């Protein structure tokens, strides 16, 4: 056990400052950069949740998963189907107006369903590792996306490539987050409300990740990652723990997906392409596999930097050359690839690797153990 109190006391002031600045973030962003940016920050929060979920599978248990976005899709489609008028098209007699279940009922169900899909992916891949596992998971991710793309016939379940629109907005205690609300005299636009909702969920995901990392289960995952044979010689049920890692990771993805559907009000298969899986994996790897804070950093950077680029490249070129020479979209991939190579060359363990922090805490830990 770690001496949390000592650690917290020393850093209580920093913690307070971080908390206040995070709470004020949407207002600052709004005032300095404009409302569009709050929306971008909201998406960054969703990506952070996804990256933390994938971190369980890849970072802790060492199972390379290239189809992770499939669980995001499962969560998103879960709410899209049950929280929109769409089901009326497929089952006009059963649901004449669609299902319109409450978000808070769908959320746990979607998380469980995504977890179930995680186990479904885990079972056939129990004996696979590394590149072989990556190929199977990649296939799984594509299968889910293609299913969503084609399940508009014979009965129109997913509306195919057009996607499902008019998804009910998320409501908290009867208050719709889709409209500007006034709380304590402060006017909170929709994107701000979603920001606080996502912040709460992200905090929950961070908390659960943190507890898992320090738990017996977390240590067992890391043992499996390091040496599977030795891990089972320690008495670890490697099969169940690997399935649990897949399920836990998938549940985080499912929760994130459900939030995404409610926030966006629209889902379509193109949001769940292989490139998204790769992006989430890059967040984990670039930030620092296995370290919660590194993963958050990676998620923030990869979600925000492309937007920064999008908003700066065109004006910059206009100012310098009087015209746009390079399209920001192509420049984005070029810079992203370069950044990836540079980070992997000079910081192969990620920008904020897990062991640095652990060493900082090491003195506290040993006092407790011996």
């Amino acid at each position, binding site marked *: 056990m770690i001496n949390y109190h000592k650690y917290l006391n020393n850093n209580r002031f920093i913690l307070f400052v971080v908390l206040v600045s995070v709470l004020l973030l949407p207002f600052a962003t709004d005032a300095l950069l404009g409302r569009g940016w709050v929306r971008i920050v909201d998406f960054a929060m969703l990506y952070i949740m996804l990256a933390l979920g994938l971190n369980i599978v890849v970072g802790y248990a060492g199972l390379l998963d290239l189809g992770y976005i499939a669980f995001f899709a499962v969560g998103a489609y879960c709410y899209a189907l049950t929280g929109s008028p769409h089901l009326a098209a497929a089952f006009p007699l059963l649901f004449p107006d669609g299902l319109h279940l409450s978000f808070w009922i769908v959320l746990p169900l979607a998380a469980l369903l995504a977890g179930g899909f995680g186990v479904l992916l885990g079972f056939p891949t129990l004996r696979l590792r590394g590149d072989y596992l990556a190929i199977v998971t990649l296939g799984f991710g594509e299968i889910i996306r293609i299913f969503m793309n084609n399940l508009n016939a014979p009965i129109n379940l997913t509306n195919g490539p057009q996607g499902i629109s008019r998804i009910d907005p998320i409501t908290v205690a009867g208050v719709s987050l889709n409209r500007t609300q006034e709380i304590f005299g402060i006017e909170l636009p929709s994107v701000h409300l979603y920001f606080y909702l996502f912040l709460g969920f992200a905090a929950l995901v961070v908390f659960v990740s943190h507890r898992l990392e320090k738990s017996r289960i977390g240590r067992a995952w890391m043992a499996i990652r390091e040496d599977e044979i030795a891990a089972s*010689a320690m008495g670890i049920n490697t099969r169940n723990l690997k399935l649990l890692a897949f399920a836990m990771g998938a549940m985080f993805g499912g929760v994130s997906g459900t939030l995404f559907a409610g926030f966006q009000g629209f889902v379509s298969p193109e949001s769940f392409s292989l490139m998204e899986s790769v992006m989430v994996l890059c967040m984990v790897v670039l930030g620092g596999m296995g370290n919660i804070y590194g993963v958050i950093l990676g998620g923030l950077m990869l979600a925000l930097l492309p937007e920064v680029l999008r908003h700066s490249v065109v004006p910059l070129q206009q100012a310098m050359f009087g015209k746009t020479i390079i399209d920001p979209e192509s420049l984005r991939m070029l810079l992203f690839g370069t950044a990836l190579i540079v980070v992997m060359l000079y910081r192969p363990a990620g920008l904020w690797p897990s062991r640095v922090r652990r060493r900082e805490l090491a003195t506290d830990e040993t006092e407790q153990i011996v």
Partner: protein
Amino acid sequence: MSNGTSFPWKRESSLLEKPRAQVGGLNGAQHLLDVKGLQVGYGGIHAVKCIDLHVAPGELVALIGSNGAGKTTTLKSLAGLLAPAAGQIYYDGKSLHAVPAHRRVSMGIALVPEGRGVFARLSVAENLLMGAYSRCDQAEINNDLARMYDLFPRLVERRNQLAGTLSGGEQQMLAMARALMSRPRLLMLDEPSMGLAPLMVKKIFETIQDVALQGMSILLVEQNARLALQVASRGYVMESGAITLSGKSSELLGSDAVQRAYLGG
């Protein structure tokens, strides 16, 4: 090792053989481990062809043989990591036939895998805690942890270091300490001398001998036949999947066949 009083199994009666171990189980056997007609294969190829061996409580038994003789395969199937094609394994009189690997650890069977298998990116302390994964008596685990640091003082200095940064000998010590953390009654060691400097090999074997003197039952797999037979009371010689010779260590050390094949004339 110099400080004999620090051995956990000296102070703790629970680390010694439990009384029921002496009461014979099936076949009226007096053995802690009894292997009968064990066959293990990798997809059709039989790496182990019908072997019989046993380990009595408190006995140090060596299983020697050259590369590829099937020694590691035997240990792996005893630990439950490989399913046998035929034959029976009795531990403490009970058949291990349907017992999965992770349950065997809590029954008291510990394996120190070949190549040590330490968790490289976990700290030394965390590695030791993993050894006690099958236990949940937190206070006793902490006691045992302290005892392991007594037994292997080198590990104390290195307890916050990542296990992957230790030297080969230190890793072997860690792997042994980690196995002992599960409070085993049968300790199985796979090639503890592999890749170590002669001085370190000597040290490791002294520790093995000490552990055995405290009453631990040990099955030691080694390529270094002379060293293994010097510490063991009995030995089995394995050749291409079968046991060709067995007997007291002193007899094996003196036998012509062993001399020629493993001890260089």
